[in-house]
């Protein structure tokens, strides 16, 4: 139990940690074990073959952390001989178990029902919950510091803990409100267009400075208004930071919020002196940061420019000026089927438009048919092909595409020159050569597939009018070897599959 007599010894200069010393060694070891299991859980994801074991190790780590906490914190002290819990103790235990059961049920039902296309918004929603939980834990620690063992000798909250608490609440609140906006944008409940407030950089930097100032102030004065204002400002800045960011940059935002949720957990781990929380926070924080970096690199955007926001807005204006009347060739499903059957190797480049049209299953059927006829079929995935990192891989896996037929950009890009057909479905910007040649293009510098090196390019597109997410014209449409297949992606592939039979 961490409740007890006030500390007898004067506190250490940097932190008051009597309660940790009071915890038996097995508790500390259990939290360490759970931290190690979390590391193994991520390690398992290095290959699909080991990933499921990794996930189970993660569950075990979480189980250990929760049970250990319940055993040490629950009203029934494990060390006591013949514990005689009072009715109030039992009520508290019941409340906790009911809370876990309620949350667990909601979680499992949601996880079962969610469509794989809706994964980005689900992850954003989950991030918001971690953020809010961090805020609540921070506030609970503020209201009941004794329970968290963060009281200094003079009965006030230890100053170091106040900084950790303030940062934890601030990061948690930013994660919460930012994730809510990201969720609304990804779920289409709010326009994906960036919302630009005048002078937003000044407002944002000012609010951030105010939050840091209040955290510093909090070490001197633990008044309620300080922490309340800090919380309110942090909720506000989370909201302000995400509304100017356009839909195309959401993969970065989701990764970034992933990172924040980790740092929030780490800050709370500092407050609680809990190794499982600190290790987890560091893992999740690094994970989100690395994914943000990968996404930024895949779009050739700097992290700062993504955070500054406003991407989709400017691109729209450019698109209007570049309408051209260059000649292009249209093909039919029968033509496409004939060429596909004659080919030796086909590389399919799917984009998010394929998932929107729900064409992944029929696309896999087409792949199966071709493989039966001896055609080599591979899938080429751009890092930003989906709406979050790795999203397209999940969508293809759901359609039963074997993962060893799916390749990443840098692994397959050189193979287009040997491929007979590059089959582009629902993608546009990721195959646009302007990214390599046109310095004025908004996507200049973005790594793209060299589909032009293939002998034939088939491009499924709804119409010639629309342009990609970045709003730029694509030279691939007008190449000699390109056959435009205009129509709904799903219907077009269905027709190709039908024609393949003959």
């Amino acid at each position, binding site marked *: 139990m961490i409740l007890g007599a006030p500390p007898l010894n004067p506190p250490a200069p940097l932190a008051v940690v009597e309660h940790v010393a009071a915890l038996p060694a097995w508790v500390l070891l259990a939290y360490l074990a759970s931290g190690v299991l979390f590391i193994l*859980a991520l390690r398992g994801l*290095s290959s699909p073959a080991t*990933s499921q074991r990794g*996930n189970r190790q993660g569950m075990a780590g979480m189980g250990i952390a929760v049970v250990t906490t319940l055993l040490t914190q629950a009203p029934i002290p494990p060390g006591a001989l013949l514990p005689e819990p009072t009715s109030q103790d039992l009520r508290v235990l019941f409340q906790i178990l009911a809370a876990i059961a309620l949350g667990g049920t909601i979680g499992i039902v949601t996880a079962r029902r969610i469509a794989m296309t809706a994964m980005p918004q689900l992850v954003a929603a989950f991030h918001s919950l971690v953020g809010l*939980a961090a805020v609540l834990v921070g506030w609970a620690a503020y209201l009941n510091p004794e329970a968290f063992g963060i009281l200094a000798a003079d009965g006030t909250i230890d100053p170091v803990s106040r900084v950790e608490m303030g940062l934890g609440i601030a990061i948690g609140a930013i994660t919460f409100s930012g994730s809510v906006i990201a969720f609304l944008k990804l779920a289409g409940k709010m326009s994906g267009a960036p919302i630009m407030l005048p002078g937003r950089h000044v407002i944002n930097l000012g609010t951030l400075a105010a939050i840091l100032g209040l955290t510093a102030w909090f070490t001197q004065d633990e008044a309620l208004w300080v922490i309340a204002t800090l919380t309110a400002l942090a909720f506000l800045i989370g909201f302000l930071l995400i509304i100017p960011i356009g839909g195309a940059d959401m993969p970065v935002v989701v990764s970034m919020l992933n990172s924040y949720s980790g740092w929030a957990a780490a800050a709370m781990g500092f407050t609680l002196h809990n190794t499982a929380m*600190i290790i987890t926070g560091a893992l*999740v924080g690094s994970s989100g940061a690395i994914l943000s970096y990968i996404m930024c690199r895949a779009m050739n955007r700097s992290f700062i420019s993504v955070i500054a926001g406003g991407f989709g807005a400017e691109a729209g204006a450019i698109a209007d000026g570049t309408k051209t009347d260059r000649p292009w060739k249209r093909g039919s499903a029968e033509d496409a089927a004939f060429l596909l059957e004659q080919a030796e190797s086909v590389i399919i480049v799917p984009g998010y438009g394929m998932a929107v049209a729900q064409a992944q299953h029929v696309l896999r059927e087409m792949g199966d048919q071709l493989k039966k006829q001896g055609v080599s079929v591979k899938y080429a995935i751009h890092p930003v092909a989906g709406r979050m990192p*790795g999203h397209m891989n999940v969508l293809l896996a759901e359609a*039963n595409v074997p993962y060893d037929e799916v390749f990443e950009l840098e692994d397959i890009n050189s193979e287009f020159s040997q491929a007979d057909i590059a089959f582009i479905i629902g993608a546009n910007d990721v195959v646009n050569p302007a990214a390599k040649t046109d310095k004025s293009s908004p996507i200049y510098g973005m790594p793209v597939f060299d589909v032009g090196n293939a002998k034939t390019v088939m491009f499924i597109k709804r119409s010639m009018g629309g342009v990609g997410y970045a709003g730029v014209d694509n030279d691939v449409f007008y190449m000699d070897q390109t056959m435009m297949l205009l129509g709904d992606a799903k219907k077009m592939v269905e027709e190709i599959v039908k024609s393949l039979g003959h």
Partner: protein
Amino acid sequence: MDFISILSIFVLACFVGYYVVWSVTPALHTPLMAVTNAISSVIIVGALVAAAAKGSFEATWLGLIGVVLASVNIFGGFAVTARMLAMYKKKER
């Protein structure tokens, strides 16, 4: 454990995280996000402390709400990760 020991664990864990995450195959980045989401809900430890402690009615209820939110994430996060990972299959040969 003093502040420096905790900070040491944190800094070393950041390095572990850095190398472990780079070794994750890009094909599994979505499950990575889902599972990191689930494990970051280890913050439930703090919520449990608050919910179990006596002395502050408000803190207890904040803790209980925190337990609900974190549980949604833990069960939902691990379940959705398991669901995704089960879909990744190798080519039949």
